[in-house]
């Protein structure tokens, strides 16, 4: 237990989250440890995306605190939003989208150095889409867009890759490929993965830690104990009753 605490990258302490001072969820306390695959699951409207945005700093917490492993060194997030988040009116190529991941290290107004461009190509290669580098991002399929966004997240050289519903709107095989890749990424690059999804099957197979937002409660545990068939059947029976 002590070892886990020492490796915590982010610790949420008694957090209340919501919009305009109206709490959606309260009393959230858990840690995300280094090199761990954490999934936030729950039904639509349960507060998954709100929690994710609060962790990313896009929304301020209403109460409680979020602390990082080293307050002096900033934690780098590699963010993968839903691919439907983007307006197709932007004529950006795949490479230009992925390159944005490096902007956090490039001074405003400065040219992007060659080594950052090369690194972006490496990230695109790592997810198998470098041959699409000159294609328009808006013209790709959902699964291809998802891979490009993962490459963009990797280009940020992240401590944690954060994904918002990466399997939404993509077919079963693409979902499987994305989840496999994320597991592999965690193992090979020692990067933590934080994922929001309602795909329980995918989570059961890949996640080490699960945060289940269930009717205002926050249940935390391993995928095996929290998402076991018996436990889930019990939860849904309770709901029907």
């Amino acid at each position, binding site marked *: 237990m002590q070892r886990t605490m020492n490796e915590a990258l982010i610790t949420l302490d008694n957090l209340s989250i919501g919009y305009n001072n109206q709490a959606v969820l309260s009393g959230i306390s858990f840690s995300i440890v280094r090199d761990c695959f954490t999934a936030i699951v729950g039904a639509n409207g349960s507060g998954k995306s709100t929690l994710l*945005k609060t962790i*990313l*700093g*896009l929304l301020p917490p209403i109460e409680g605190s979020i602390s990082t492993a080293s307050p002096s060194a*900033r934690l780098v*997030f590699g*963010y993968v*939003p839903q691919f439907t*988040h*983007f*307006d197709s*009116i*932007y*004529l*950006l*190529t795949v490479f*230009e989208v992925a390159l*944005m991941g490096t*902007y*956090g290290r*490039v001074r*405003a*107004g400065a040219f*992007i150095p060659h080594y950052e461009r090369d690194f972006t190509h490496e990230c695109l290669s790592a997810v198998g889409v470098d041959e699409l580098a000159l294609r*328009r991002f808006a013209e790709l399929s959902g699964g291809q867009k998802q891979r490009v966004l993962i490459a*963009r997240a990797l280009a*940020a050289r992240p401590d944690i890759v954060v994904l918002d519903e990466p399997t939404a709107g993509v077919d079963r095989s693409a979902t499987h490929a994305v989840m496999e890749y994320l597991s592999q990424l965690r193992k090979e690059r020692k990067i933590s993965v934080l994922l929001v999804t309602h795909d329980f099957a995918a989570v059961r197979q890949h996640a080490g830690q699960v945060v289940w937002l269930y009717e205002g409660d926050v249940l935390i545990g391993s995928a095996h104990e929290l998402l076991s068939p018996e436990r889930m059947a019990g939860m849904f029976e309770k709901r029907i009753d």
Partner: protein
Amino acid sequence: METLRQILSPDFLLRNSIYTSVIIGLSCPLVGVFFVMRRLVFMGVALPQISSTGVAIALSLPMWLGFNLAGHGSHSVHTLAFTGSITFTLTAILVLAFLQRRGHGHPDGRLGTAYVVAASLSILLLSKNPYGEIGWLDMLKGDVIAISDFDLVLTASTLTLVLAVLGLFHKELLMVSFDRELAIILRKNVVFWDILLYLLIGLTVSMAVLSVGPLTAFGFLLIPALMAHLFARNMRQFTVLASLTGGAVAFLGFWLSYQYDFPVGPTDVVVLGVLYAIAWIVARVI
């Protein structure tokens, strides 16, 4: 062709007008691409009109305060008009953008109301201004014929500054427009970049309104960018093509208006409209 030879001659009497037209034609689409990408087309209609209301109020202010501007040089009048234009444009863009970000109300309704009230107010103000007949009304209509060396230098230097800042900070302005959340996560100051973009839009709109009037300014903000979007494959092509289209049409419009004795601004807009229709058909066929 004789008309074209005259226009291209260095001794051409209206050379400042054609230089200004082309500069406006090249510059407006550069900020116009952000209007199109951020889907702020209605703001593109309202801002030039609000800018011209700023001109009308600035030119009416001395009369309300009991000063007579008739004896002052055109520099003072132009500077006063520019001050009114930029003040109103920036205030309007910041207020409208703030309200849009808050997400309350009906954004299109707000912009439509701002447009129609601004247009009516500028007409009312000028109708009650005794100096309106001595050229100020022409300035508001965007009579590009009477451009002094001072006006040309002011327009060229302001728009060169806009171009330089847009070029220098293009990646930041693009990221904040394309993926605001990523910009925040990468610790970019999104409010600063938004304000910088609005400042550049405000400067461009103000200069364009003073030189070619609100109608033509809107035409050059919007139509070249829409045309370029039909054919461009990436952002660089989009920006360059929009700017070159605007510059070329400004020249062509001036040539036609000189040849057939048409007013320059409306000629430019009609040429842009016709070319856009042709471009749309060509893009469908290709």
